[in-house]
């Protein structure tokens, strides 16, 4: 399924933190991510790997350099344009699952699609059920998110990340809070998504087993890419 087309391009990225004092976190890095690639970013704490991911996610716009998605330049767009872009093209999975606790698993999965508004609510519900089934969560669909176990919550978060068929799925330590069994399950899911659906996956992790399981690993240290 892999193509040589680029899903994502980073040029001369530089980022500073200004608090408590000005400090260069990312020091002029450039790289490409191919469509359908399963990429991991590793590095020690403070190496800038998470910071890099949040720049890639379009949520952090305070950087120098440029960011392109599928050839579309995102640097310089307004927050609202970026929010709409994220909604349609990027799915997120975080270390702490960040579901909306007062909503059912199903509603959590449906929210980004309802926001996008491309399909009728009935169709979205149908697709949300399918995603939950794919992740073996069909039975938990109507339970409130805060009534689910950690592993289940993480899988609901993945189902939610998938609902709009995003071209890129990003994970910030997606298995960091899971036991090894659940961690392996999540890795398998990501691998399948990349292989069967051609979705690009970028995960920040400090789990070397996880990184070994991916197509490519970028290792960062002191704001620079050591090897890729």
């Amino acid at each position: 399924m892999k193509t040589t087309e680029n899903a994502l391009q980073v040029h001369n990225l530089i980022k500073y933190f200004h608090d408590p004092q000005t400090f260069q976190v990312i020091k002029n890095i450039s790289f490409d991510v191919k469509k359908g690639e399963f990429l991991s970013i590793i590095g020690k704490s403070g190496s800038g790997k998470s910071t890099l991911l949040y720049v890639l996610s379009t949520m952090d716009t305070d950087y120098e350099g440029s960011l392109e998605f599928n050839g579309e330049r995102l640097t310089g767009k307004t927050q609202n344009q970026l929010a709409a872009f994220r909604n349609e093209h990027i799915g997120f999975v975080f270390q702490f699952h960040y579901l909306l606790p007062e909503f059912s698993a199903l509603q959590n999965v449906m929210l980004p699609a309802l926001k996008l508004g491309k399909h009728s609510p009935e169709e979205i519900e149908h697709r949300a059920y399918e995603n939950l089934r794919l992740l073996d969560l069909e039975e938990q669909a109507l339970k409130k998110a805060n009534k689910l176990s950690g592993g289940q919550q993480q899988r609901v978060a993945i189902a939610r990340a998938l609902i709009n068929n995003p071209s890129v799925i990003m994970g910030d330590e997606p298995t960091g809070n899971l036991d090894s069994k659940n961690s392996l399950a999540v890795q398998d899911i990501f691998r399948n998504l990349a292989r069967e659906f051609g979705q690009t996956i970028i995960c920040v992790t400090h789990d070397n087993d996880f990184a070994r399981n991916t197509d490519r690993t970028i290792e960062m240290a002191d704001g620079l890419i050591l090897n890729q």
Partner: protein
Amino acid sequence: MQQQTKIKKPTVNRQIAWTHLSSKPGQTLVALLGVTFGVSMYIFMNSFMNGVNQAQDDLAFSTLAHVRIYNDDDKRSYNPAESFFDAGTLLNIRNKKSLQYTDGIKNTSQVMATLEKQPEVTGITPQLNFSVFFRNGSKKINGSISGVQPASENQLFGIGSKVIAGSWKQLDVQKSGIILGKLLAEKLNVSLNDNVNVLNSDGVSKNYTVVGIVETSVKEIDKSRAYLNIATARQFQGKNFDYSSDIQVNLRDRDQTASLVSQLKSTVPYQVESWQTANQQLLAASQLRSIIAVTVSLTILLVAGFGIYNIMNMTINEKIREIAILKAMGFSGGDILSIFLAQAAVIGVVGAITGVLLGLGISSAVNLVPFKIAGLTTLPISYIPADFVSAIVFGIATTLFAGYLPARKASKIDPVVIIRG
């Protein structure tokens, strides 16, 4: 597709807003009660104040006309010596006597005809008022007599309904009849069909038959006033058939006296005085009461607004990670703003509606509380539609404003800061 997007987005936002409200029913109820209480107090305070003002006015205007026309003799001071001698001549006049040139209104029917042409005039009645002594046996009480046209007097002041014994109409039928104030009759120790002797300042004395007792609730009047037919009064005072001391005029809108007064001043050769200039204390009291009512009820709404602000602020601090996640998923700042404003709007609208109902309930309950002073039977309540409109508008506006500040804060949350911790 574009249109579909526009329709769907608010639905998701509303759905989220609704889930927030319904998953914390206790908190929502507290916020709701704040608005309900504010709006209901606003309605109650204003309805009560309106009731008090109206009761006060009813009482005042039971003896006070909107415009009074009378002959103010004091203002004429003609000194013939001044015109007879050259200016600068030293004059020494001692024990100067004054001459009464004109006294009262001699051409009553002519003045009344002028007044009847004014479209805003709703009632006119002539009166002949003078001071007398009432006598019964050796008892002698000083008081005043109002010679009135019974029908028009009743039309202006509704005095007929205040006659507690006998009948007001009897004044028309029985020319020698007199109607006494309740306390005056008690002091004179007379009752219906007894005779009472009246003595005026010219030394004329005459007997009249009591045909009625009146209670106006204005103590000053009840203990000193008596009514005669104006024809009888003219006869008693030795005045001509068209003579009166006052002409009382009522208008359609009692607050609009100024234009009529200025118009009449040029055509009527007597003093024309509006109730506002004659009784400024009434005007001041009713305006001060209104100011108090508005101040108190706005304060209550303001306090309710602070409560809502606090609750919304708390909610937003609790949900800060959820807000960050919504933003990460692609909800814009405007979406977040509309989610929280929708919650404030629901609280505002529902609170305003329940507040109106509660306000009506409290007001009608208070309206049943007995209060038997000055002709009242229960505490007075009077509903004015404008109060309900402004209560609803203020209630919703306060809530929206109190909700807007935290909602704007929420819309500006930077998801990176929250999610990275």
